[in-house]
């Protein structure tokens, strides 16, 4: 009799656990938690975790809790495709995808075929709907078709630069920046004074910077990854290059700012989609983020946070069918979030804001909001 009671209790408990598991909504995430991009993508995971916590604290979506499942890309292209397929096997309601543009481009076939709503912070212009983008892929970021142009206009108009140079990493990201800068300059009847490139693994930019110095530029736009920016800043100071410097987004991430030694980057500028910590409206969110993860919040964490919040609203409004979620999201226009303002209606390309920050005392302060 006792045995029967124990078995019944166990069966009930199992049933309860199973019912609990069934009641959860799986949210997939595909990012690099190991390899070269692990550092750059860690804020995305933080942002999503905070959003899931917030959604669940308010009772979940339609009474069901969000359950986050993460797959690692290993910071490699094939790894990104495999991770996306592995997460699909877990039947997620949506996927928060990597921010690495090349990886997202290689996943496009699977994203389109499966139709699962997918959010990405990839900035490449190629994933816009009028290019290679697909309806169920949502950019939670400002496109690279806008950011380099904003940096260029800031250099020419705000900094009054007449001779603008470009130092860019030799990959698709750097090539995108180069062509967008050239386009923005052409609109103002200008040309780059000099364009230099480097490999992502290079840790000596002396030859390139000497050529830039000889070209006598007033402003230099640097596009690359955090280690590239740190090396560039150090060597710009060493070689006495007096131009105003504007770095691409990763140069002014909170985790990059602490790598600049001895105030070397003070007075340098950087592009960001937003500065959540500097916005009084989002200060409470930024403080909560810092308390949770022991690092300052950046725009990418805020944008992935926004992605989950937009998804939760879409599910609450339209239900859990992928096509219905996509339809609800595609109706969004000027949706204000913590990290950006998003539009997906009328083939909208996601985020729209670009800000320029200036490094002062090792911290980033808002210098201009650029149209």
């Amino acid at each position, binding site marked *: 009799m006792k045995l029967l009671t124990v078995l019944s209790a166990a069966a009930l408990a199992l049933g309860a656990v199973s019912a609990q598991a069934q009641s959860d909504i799986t949210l997939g995430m595909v990012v690099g*938690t*190991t*390899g*070269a991009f*692990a*550092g750059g*993508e*860690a804020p995305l995971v933080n942002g999503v975790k905070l959003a899931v916590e917030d959604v669940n604290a308010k009772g979940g979506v339609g009474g069901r809790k969000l359950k986050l499942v993460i797959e690692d890309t290993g*910071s490699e292209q094939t790894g990104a495709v495999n991770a996306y397929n592995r997460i699909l096997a877990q039947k997620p309601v949506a996927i928060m995808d990597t921010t690495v543009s090349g990886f997202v481009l290689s996943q496009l076939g699977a994203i389109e075929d499966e139709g699962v709503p997918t959010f990405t912070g990839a900035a490449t212009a190629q994933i816009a709907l009028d290019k290679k983008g697909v309806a169920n892929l949502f950019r939670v970021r400002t496109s690279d078709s806008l950011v380099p142009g904003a940096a260029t206009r800031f250099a020419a108009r705000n900094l009054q630069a007449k001779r603008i140079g470009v130092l860019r990493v*030799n990959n698709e990201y750097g090539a995108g920046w180069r062509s967008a800068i050239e386009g923005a300059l052409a609109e103002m009847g200008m040309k780059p004074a000099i364009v*230099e*490139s*480097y*490999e992502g*693994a*290079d*840790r*000596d930019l*002396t*030859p*390139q910077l*000497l*050529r830039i110095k*000889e070209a006598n530029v007033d402003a230099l736009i640097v596009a690359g990854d*955090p*280690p590239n920016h*740190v*090396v560039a800043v*150090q060597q710009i*100071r*060493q*070689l*006495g290059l007096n131009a105003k410097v504007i770095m691409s987004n990763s140069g002014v991430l909170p*985790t*990059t700012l602490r*790598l600049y*030694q*001895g105030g*070397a980057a003070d007075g340098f500028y950087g592009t960001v989609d937003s500065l959540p910590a500097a916005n009084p409206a989002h200060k409470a969110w930024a403080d909560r983020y810092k308390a949770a993860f022991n*690092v300052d919040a950046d725009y990418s964490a805020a944008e992935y946070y926004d992605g989950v919040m937009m998804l939760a609203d879409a599910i609450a409004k339209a239900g859990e069918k992928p096509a219905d979620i996509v339809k609800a999201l595609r109706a969004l226009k000027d949706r204000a979030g913590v990290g950006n303002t998003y539009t997906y209606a009328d083939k909208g390309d996601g985020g729209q804001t670009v800000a320029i920050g200036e490094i002062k005392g090792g911290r980033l302060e808002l210098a201009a909001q650029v149209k």
Partner: protein
Amino acid sequence: METFLQVLLSGATMGCIYAFVALGFTLTIAAAGVVNFAYSEWVTFGSYFGVTFAVILGWPLWLALGASIAGCIAIGWLFQLFVFTPLEGRHFLTSVSATIGIALAMQALVTLLWGPYPLTLPTFFGSSAVQIGTISVFPHNLLIIALAVLIIGGLQLALTRTSIGLRLQATAQDPMAARLMGIPVRRMRTLAYCLSAGIAGLSGFLVAPLFVVTNTMGFGLMLKGFAATIVGGWGSLKGAVYGGLLVGLIEALGAAYISSEYKELIAFAMIIVVLLVRPRGLFPERIAEKL
């Protein structure tokens, strides 16, 4: 002239770094015929040890340098115990595969131990540049060049003028004959692994202030070190040093005077030219014949 000297200095600094890496990489090839592709991670661990001791624990830099080298020597000793010795006598591709696998595991371990964010290490002389004539120099770069001359010169003397160095060379050239002559081959190989790991620790610590410390920093360095090993002569310690310097200088001069866009292409095209003229590298060793 000013540009040329500035580029020459930066090329020499990078060349010395590549030479350090190539030297450590070559030591295990020369002494035991082991191609250690986990060497990149030994260098990476050297940097992370440096950050741990100097930044996290706040130790003085010289002490942190010593501790980082000791930490890497411990890794080298563990490697010989658990990886190289069990694989002795197997086909060299077996040890290559094993070291690649371990390198990937070590890279993931770095993220687990130190987190995903990049880190940095201060230099002995601060972050300001000094002016020497018309060129601007980071004192840390001069330290790298000075240490390269001292250590590489010292190692060359130790290998050719001391009993232990000659025994190490004998082990490298013919282990069987060395064993018959009473040389403790296993102990000599352990010494080579530990020496190689110590150089990795030193390299990692020295490059940390110039390179940002990341879990993948060692890989790019090892690729250049590997190229230097091939161009210098497979298994040749002297070749590793000259190969490293050559790669560093060609890269810098190519980027400055031809094109930064094709910098890598220029460097590797030059290497191909060298190998066409001297297929076994600049300073081929007899040891190369057994591989």
